[in-house]
């Protein structure tokens, strides 16, 4: 059990420090670690946890405590939350003191502009990895496509789109 907690701590500390561009950039690495490397859950379970976290209120990284809970109960929640939110918060605290000094430096703008394509690529990769694991059937693929189109082209509330997907899923049409 403690070996599992150490592994969770190491994984989420790394993810904490690599999450440039926000939480959605690290989903593929999180999935690779908890599904492919450690076999703590199946890819389908991971996407279900991700979906649950999306349906809950709050910041979009609530999949982190949920993975911790699924793997190791309440101590898992504590370990993953501390490991995910601690290191990046420490960096924020240090950077806040230096921000006045470096925010107008040319290198800061260059680094920030240079990270934009990386962030975009990682979010696309996340969408591919998560979609691949979430749509085992044609009916679910239709739901994903419908939600993608609706939320890209209209101002429909994300929660409404999730609810519509859940209701359509409930019919079980086209699902095994």
């Amino acid at each position, binding site marked *: 059990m403690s070996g599992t907690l150490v592994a969770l701590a190491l994984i989420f500390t790394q993810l904490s420090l690599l999450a440039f561009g926000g939480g959605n950039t690290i989903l593929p690495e999180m999935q690779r670690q908890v599904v492919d490397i450690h076999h703590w859950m199946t890819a389908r379970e991971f996407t279900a946890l991700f979906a649950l976290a999306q349906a809950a209120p709050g910041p*979009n990284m609530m999949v982190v405590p949920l993975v911790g809970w699924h793997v190791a109960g309440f101590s898992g929640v504590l370990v993953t939350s501390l490991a995910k939110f601690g290191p990046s918060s420490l960096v924020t605290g240090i950077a806040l003191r230096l921000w006045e000094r470096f925010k107008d430096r040319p290198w800061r703008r260059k680094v920030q502009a240079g990270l934009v394509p990386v962030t975009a690529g990682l979010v696309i990769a996340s969408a591919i990895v*998560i979609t691949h694991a979430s749509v085992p059937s044609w009916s679910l693929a239709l739901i994903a496509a419908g939600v993608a189109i609706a939320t890209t082209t209209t101002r429909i509330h994300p929660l409404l789109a999730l609810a519509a*997907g859940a209701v359509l899923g409930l019919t079980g049409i086209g699902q095994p």
Partner: protein
Amino acid sequence: MDAVPTADHTIKQGAPSVADLFMGFFILGLTGFGGVLPLARRMMVEKRGWLTGAEFTDLLGLCQFLPGGNVINMSVAVGLKFRGIPGAFAAILGLIAAPTAVVIALGVVYDRYENEPVVRHLFGGLAAAAAGLLISMAIKVAWPLRRDVVGWLIGVLCVLAIAVFRLPLLPTLLTLAPLSILLKSRQAS
């Protein structure tokens, strides 16, 4: 002391207490569905007057520059700014306390009824819809780069490394981030 209040003095008087920070972010965490950022601005700038619009934008710039979620980093930064380390703890704990309790409650239900067909179908639809949201987000993030050669190159390399070859994130970032920064700064000059 009857001294004329300095600018610093007036700011301190309007500064939120540790409890204010906790409550402000607690409500934000409970009410923010599908993206907390617009609500965060409304709460801190318009409703509570903790920050001016310009200060908010400046702090957001810092938080976007650093690893981690924007709003989570911002809670830490705002907490630190007003009340030091206790303020930072109050703000981030306030932000994640309620959502953590909610996701765990949902997780308990999922774990318990995972194999019931009805629950499985419901979560199947929910997961597909969540994937759809992520696709939409990817389109919105990538759209401004559609005419950018460096954007395409780095984006395609990222997708190949992470989604196709399933390479670890650390070496991928250590390679592609410097490359992207180098190419973008050459493109700009």
